């Protein structure tokens, strides 16, 4: 199994969710994060003091999937999240050794 970690632009969340749903993936966990990368932040000025905001608000998705679905899921996310402009984000794939559904104690792919 894989844990797919995707960093995307916040306003793309809805589309990505729909794309994943279309790919049969309903479960995911979302975190608000700040991104640093090539995309640059902006400057705010408060009574003359400049305040450079060099982080950018991003959304992090974590999706656990069975190995065979991973490729489809990655593609779905990549496609839905793309705007083609700098700062679109990254997808990281991490091996997942075990998954447990707490409610039922199911383990492995059944639990995803």
């Amino acid at each position, binding site marked *: 199994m894989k844990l797919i970690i995707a960093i995307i632009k916040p306003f793309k969340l809805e589309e990505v969710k729909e794309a994943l749903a279309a790919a049969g993936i309903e479960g995911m966990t979302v975190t608000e994060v700040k991104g640093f990368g090539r995309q640059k932040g902006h400057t*705010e*000025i*408060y*009574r*003359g*003091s*400049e*305040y*450079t905001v060099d982080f950018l608000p991003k959304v992090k998705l974590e999706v656990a999937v069975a190995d065979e679905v991973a490729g489809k899921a990655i593609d779905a996310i990549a496609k839905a999240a793309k705007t083609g402009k700098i700062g679109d984000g990254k997808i990281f794939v991490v091996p997942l050794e075990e998954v447990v559904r707490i409610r039922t104690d199911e383990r492995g792919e059944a639990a995803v």
Partner: protein
Amino acid sequence: MISIPAFPRGLRTSVLFFILLCPLLRTWAAQPAAEPPSSVEKRLAALEAYVANADPAAAATVAPGAPARAPLAGVPGPGHNAWMMVSAALVLFMTIPGLGLFYGGLVRTKNVLSVVAWCFGITSLVTVLWWAVGYSLVFGRSFDSPFLGGTEFFFLRGVGAAPNPDYSFWVSHNVFATYQLAFAIITPAVIIGGVVERMRFPAVLLFTTLWFFAVYCPVAHMVWGANGFMNGLANPAAGIRAVDFAGGMVVEMASGLSALVLCLMVGKRLGHGRTPMPPHSLVITVAGTGMLWVGWYGFNAGSALAADGVAANAFLTTTLAAAVAAGVWAALERALRGKASVLGFCSGAVAGLVTITPACGFVDATGAMVAGVLGGAIPFLACVKVKALFGYDDALDVMGVHGVGGIVGLLVTGFFATTAANPALANNLGGIVGRTLWLEQLKGIGLTLVWTCVGTALAALMVKAITGLRPTVEAETEGLDLSDHGEEGYIYEPKS
């Protein structure tokens, strides 16, 4: 702040007529077993004095054989009393929560409560000082000194519901004392904007106490005491014949300069100039700004000490200056940096209110527009350009907004004060209004500046010696909310 009530023409006519009438009255007075019609005159004059905010006793004593007690003497006038209670409530509202929110929103999340705690602590402390000795030291006369009041009102002895005609014919003495208390509270509360995020709570309280005696009491007596050294309006013997309607010297200059001196002595915030320290909640600051603005009507128009024409004029000029200065500050931001900001509007509004403070009861609408333009522009430059040149850490720009704005306002008053706005200017200052009043204002500015800086420096040195000024690095890093008060401003829990 003291407006010697103008005798409007209607009233003067009546008084004149009354004098002419005297012979007739004397005849009537010969009739037995009835107070003569003169008493009707006196009673009418007293009632008219109420409406016109004039001295009820003055009219009465004109009558020959007048009884010791004038009609309505010792009775507060409902319209004036109502206005002054509202004004006092509004000025108290300026500190809590107004200034607390205004300042609180401008600091970082971890220090928001400390700012509020300082405002509360100052309120409690100054109230006790005022009750015990402060009011008397400022508005008493027993020392017979132009520099300090007296002891007769210690513990507010004798400060009852009857007006104190030294300051107002129709406002209850205790309402006047409470109104003035609100000024004594907000002045040190404004100061602390210069040293937020890095001063210990006990140090703030000790400093307030020392500063109250070293600076506030003498300066306030000099400017507003009936026999004050700089009270050009009411004191014909004033050493400096300056005028300051609602506190350009006492409140604005004093707080601005004190903040500057204090912030230099306390030192910069950890990380100042490196870490960004943006306001954590401009929304809260906006709420505070609105409360300051509305409260300032009590501050400025209330300083007429009556709901009379002088108050009415101050009400208009305050509105004009605040709104114009807000716009000017924002427009300058737009011109120089491309964007007008909400902090700019808020800063400009406060700067405009500061600038019109000494002027509001002396200038007309035109003067107010000038105050608004200058009060937006000059403090803007002071905060955004000058401060950057020197690099001191006056965190919330108390010097730039209040100190500079106060000075600008005092000069605007010097040049634009007019007897059309306030007939009382003709009493003692008729010869210099519209001419050299600005010179007297300059002198007043100079004395206030020196006195305030010296007094503040001494007070701060003593505090440094006794409690120390700053928290530990750990405490400052953790934030004063937790380290000094054991609380947090916001605990937004996740839903469950």
